[in-house]
Each structure stands twice: as C-alpha cells, then as structure tokens.
C-alpha cells in the first residue's frame, strides 16, 4: 500500500505546484522601504483595482485620436520610460520637453514630475491626458469613451462593486496600477534584506562605499532619492526649461529639478531631465569635471576649495557603475502582470 503513497504524494505536490497562482497580484510593501507617502491604509490598493488601472494605462482611447496610451511612452520593459528617447514623442509624433520618468515606487513620492507640479498620485494622469503633445484629450471625453466601452463594466464591478464609471473611480484605478508598480527586488535589495545569500562582488562593494561617500546625500537609500529638487549644474542657461521655478515662482528654483531615483538605470537611459546624458559614464564624467557653475548650483556640489563636483579615478567610476547596476530590478521589468495583457 505504501508503494502508492509516495508517488501519490509527488503527484499531489506537483499538482499543487502547477496550480501555484501566477496571476495573483497583491500589494506588498518592501520590508526595507520606509512607510509610503500614499495613504495605503485608507485608500486600499486591490488586485481588481490594479487590473482595472492596468487596462486603462494601456488604453489608447485616453488620447484624442485613440492612438496613444500611457504605455506608449511608459514601456514596462524600460522600467516604464521611453527607452532611448531623449524626450518622448506623443500624439501626432509631437515632441515633449522632458525625459520620461519611470513609473516606479510612486507610493513613496510626495511630488510628481520633474518640477514637482503634481502632488496627488491619482491626478498625475490628467497632466498627460490634457497635454497637447502627449494625449491631447479632454478628461471628460476619456470618461465618455470608457463609459461606452463594453470591456469596462465587469472590471469596474470587480474593482468597486458596481459597474458605474465615475471620475473618482477612473482616477483611483490608475493610481492603484501605478502605485502597484513597486521595484524592490534588485540585487541591492536582496543584499539589504539578506535574501538568497546575495552578496556584492568586490567591485560592487567598493562602488557602494564610494556611492555612500559621494552620492547618498541626494540619492538617499533605499529609494535613491531624497525627493528634493536641485540644480546639478547641467547648464547656466535656464531659458529652455526653468524647472521647479515654473511651479514655485521662486527664483532660487530656476534650473532646479527633482532628484530622480537611481533604480533601474540600465533600462531608463538616457538620463537627466533633458535626456542629454546618454550613459552612466557620461553622467559620472559630468560630476567629475563637467559641472557648470550655474546660478543655483547646489551647494553640495561645490567643494570647500571651490572645486565643482567630485574627484574619481577611472577605476572608481567603474566601481560606482558596477554598484549602480545592482539597483537594476530585472523582475520588475519582466513582470508579466505589469505589461499590456
């Protein structure tokens, strides 16, 4: 009789493994992250809300001519940027002004966009929808299209209990999807959490030390940004893009832009608000002799002896780049639950 038990056991085990759900998404807050800025306790992000938001995110009906969706410029395999594009091109191939930011870890951000002009996650989408060079559509028209699309009622019902399509539900669904795009499983994260015996190589470890000495004041762990806005000496001429000044109207904010996260850099090139740095090497060259003495250059980038930026040897630059690559989260960019279904 026992001859049957073991095979039976294995069959049951395999059967159970085979049925292990691949399509069950739930919100998991990383243990090595601080508390989110978003009020997850009172505005719950659910699987059904995430899935409804995902459908909306990839829906080109959000644009005037039904050609351009959020996913057109925010591509999942590029950590939700428009890979390789200095600035994005939207509807009618019109060019934007700034490099597309990754849609990642937004639950921790207090302010959105390069100039911090938007502070509510669910209101971020309105900017792209109404921009004449992105989707060029009125939000009210979008809502009408969604209301008339037979694919949506069951998704609204699953997410909210009834089929009714409202502004609030529409916006919050998008917020649930975007908020659910959490990147926290890079090699760096596994080292921090002591998972899978992850360990830095000697090069990566050296790079981490150098990073902590030179970069972490602005690019603070674990999100690799302190969420502040700074001028990092890209240009002395603020005319082309005034940055945060356009929101605050404070002259000390001229040429000042958000400190972006450094996660997933391999997938999000090129870099800086104007996309003008094509590689990490170019970025490090910028910080080690390429800084402009612009009017609002951040004091942290001015040494006591007047030198701008840092000094790094060639090997040290390689080490830092090696460390930065440990912030790439391959699982994030390959997650089938994040891409267009």
């Amino acid at each position, binding site marked *: 009789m026992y001859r049957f038990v073991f095979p039976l056991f294995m069959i049951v085990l395999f059967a159970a493994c085979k049925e292990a759900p691949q399509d069950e998404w739930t919100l998991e807050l990383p243990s090595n992250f601080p508390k989110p800025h978003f009020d997850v306790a009172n505005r719950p992000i659910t699987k059904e809300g995430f899935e409804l938001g995902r459908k909306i995110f990839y829906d080109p009906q959000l644009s005037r001519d039904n050609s351009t969706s959020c996913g057109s410029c925010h591509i999942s395999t590029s950590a939700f940027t428009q890979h390789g594009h200095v600035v994005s091109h939207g509807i009618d191939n019109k060019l934007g002004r700034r490099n597309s930011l990754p849609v990642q870890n937004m639950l921790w951000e207090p302010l959105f966009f390069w100039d911090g002009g938007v502070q509510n996650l669910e209101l971020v989408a309105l900017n792209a*929808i109404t921009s004449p060079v992105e989707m060029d559509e009125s*939000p009210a028209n979008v809502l009408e299209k969604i209301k008339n699309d037979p694919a949506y009622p069951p998704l609204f019902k699953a997410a909210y209990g009834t089929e009714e399509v409202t502004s*609030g539900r529409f916006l919050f669904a998008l917020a649930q999807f975007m908020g659910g795009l959490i990147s926290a499983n890079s090699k760096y994260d596994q080292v921090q959490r002591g998972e899978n015996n992850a360990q830095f190589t000697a090069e990566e470890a050296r790079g981490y030390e150098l990073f902590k000495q030179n970069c972490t004041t602005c690019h603070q762990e674990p999100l690799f940004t302190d969420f502040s806005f700074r001028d990092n000496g890209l240009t002395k001429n603020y005319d082309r893009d005034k940055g945060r000044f356009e929101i605050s*109207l*404070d002259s000390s904010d001229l040429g000042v832009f958000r400190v972006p996260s450094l996660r997933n850099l391999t997938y999000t090139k090129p870099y800086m608000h104007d996309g003008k740095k094509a590689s990490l090497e170019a970025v490090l060259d910028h910080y080690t002799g390429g800084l402009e003495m612009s009017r609002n250059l951040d004091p942290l980038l001015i040494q006591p002896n007047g030198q701008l930026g840092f000094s790094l040897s060639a090997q040290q630059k390689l080490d830092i780049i090696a460390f930065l690559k440990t912030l790439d989260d391959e699982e994030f960019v390959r997650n089938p639950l994040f891409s267009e279904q």
Partner: protein
Amino acid sequence: MKKVHFLAALAAISMMTVTACHDHNDEAEYAEKGSLVVEMDHQAGSVPFNLGANYVTAAGDTIKFSKFNYFVSNFVLVKEDGSEYIVPKNDCYFLIQHENGVANEIKLENIPGGAYKSVRFMIGVDSLMSATPAEQRPASLDPVTNAAGMYWAWNSGYIFVKVEGTSPQAPIDPSTQERDVVYHVGGYGGNNPASPTMNNIKTVTLEKSGELAQVGQLESDHSHGGTSEGVEPHAHVYVNVLEFFTAPTSFKVADNPVMHWGDFSKTLANNYADMFTLDHIHN
C-alpha cells in the same frame, strides 16, 4: 346670575380673542431650518454684464469678453447676534460660469432659521481641499468633468477666476492670430508651510446696513401660501467684472494681455477681491 356670568364670560372671551389677534411677539418666528439663495448678478460697471458685448475698463481698454468663470467656496453666514453658521465642507464649493441670460444661483440649504446680517466666502478653493484625494472631492470640484476647464493638470490646483476675451488694445497672440486677453488666476499657497507657493485666495465679507436675510421666517397668516418651511431669502450680490481691471491697480491690456501663473496674478487677485457687493435681499 347665570346671565351675568355668561355675559362676563363672553366679554372675557371676546377680549382675549381680540388681544390674541394683536398679540405678536416682537421677534419673528423661524422654522428650525431654511434655505438662502445667493444670486450672483454679473455687472460691467453699472450695467448688466454679457459675453460678446463691449465694455471699457478704467484704463480705457475696450474688451469683449468670451469667458467669465470663478469658484466661490467656504460660505459662513453670520446672524444678527454675531453667531456663525459654517456651511458644511462638501456643500460649500460652487463654480460659476457665466452664460448670457442664465441666472447664477447658489442655494444654501439646511441653514438654521434666523436673521442673518452678513455672508463670508472665499474666492477660490482652499489648500486642504486642493490636496484631498480626487475621489473624495465634491462633484463641483471634479477635475475630470465639472471643473475640467478650471483646473491645472500640470500644477495641481484650481483656476480661481478665469477671464478671457479680445481687445483692440491687446497685441496679436502669435498662436491664435487674435488680440486675445487671457487671465487664469489661481494659487492656493501649496501644502508645504516650509516653502509656500503663491497664495491668491481672497476672503469676501458682504453685508449692507438695513439688509437682513430672514431665513426660515414663518409667516403669521400664511397669506403667501407659504409652508411651515418659511421664507427663502434671495440675496442679490453684484459681481462687477470691470473690477478685475482696477482698484487697487488699473492696468492696460497692452502691458499685460495674458497671465497664467506668475507674479502679476497677485495684482489681478487683489483687484478682483472687491468685485462682489451685496446689493439687496428679497425676503
């Protein structure tokens, strides 16, 4: 004896009845709750305002308006005795968008009955509501539908006052080839006290000597066919569009034809802060 008593009783009853007919309280009686309608009557100086008509500003510019929209909110009603009634948050935001021939009536309901001498409100939307999750905002503030044209998607916040039109004194706008005047004024100060942004919220207090709004006042003889709900006063507030262009600062459209988000909007907000006056109340 019976006859005397009867007469006396009759006399007494008569007197009491007569007395009762004249026995009003000196104070009017009010229903527990009532409504008040604030009617915004748009004016251009001393004449009624219409889109498409020409008006002349204090600085001598002629303007033909195509839009006049604004938010008023956070209404507080003050009784004769100084006590205040704050209209509940979810019911206190109103977007007024001028349409020729359409009355702009703000109906405030469930107000404690009584005699009110003044009303206080904000021109614009306060900082707390401007940061509230979108799905929790009242319908009048929905940035997707009702408030879509009065909301900045790139700089979170509502446009408090929008004035648009054309003027022969304005320069030609290169993108439209028209002599446009375009003013969008907003700015609630942001939500970070450590680094406040521009704050153009203005508070208006309206009262007029001798004018009281008798909310819920009960008619003693019901001769108007009124119900026990009582009087619903209509307060007529005159809104003078031309004040946008003057007092304290008269400006020429040639110097400032367009303002979206910038320092000059402070000047505009200071100008329009005194756009509203209480003209009269129908009780």
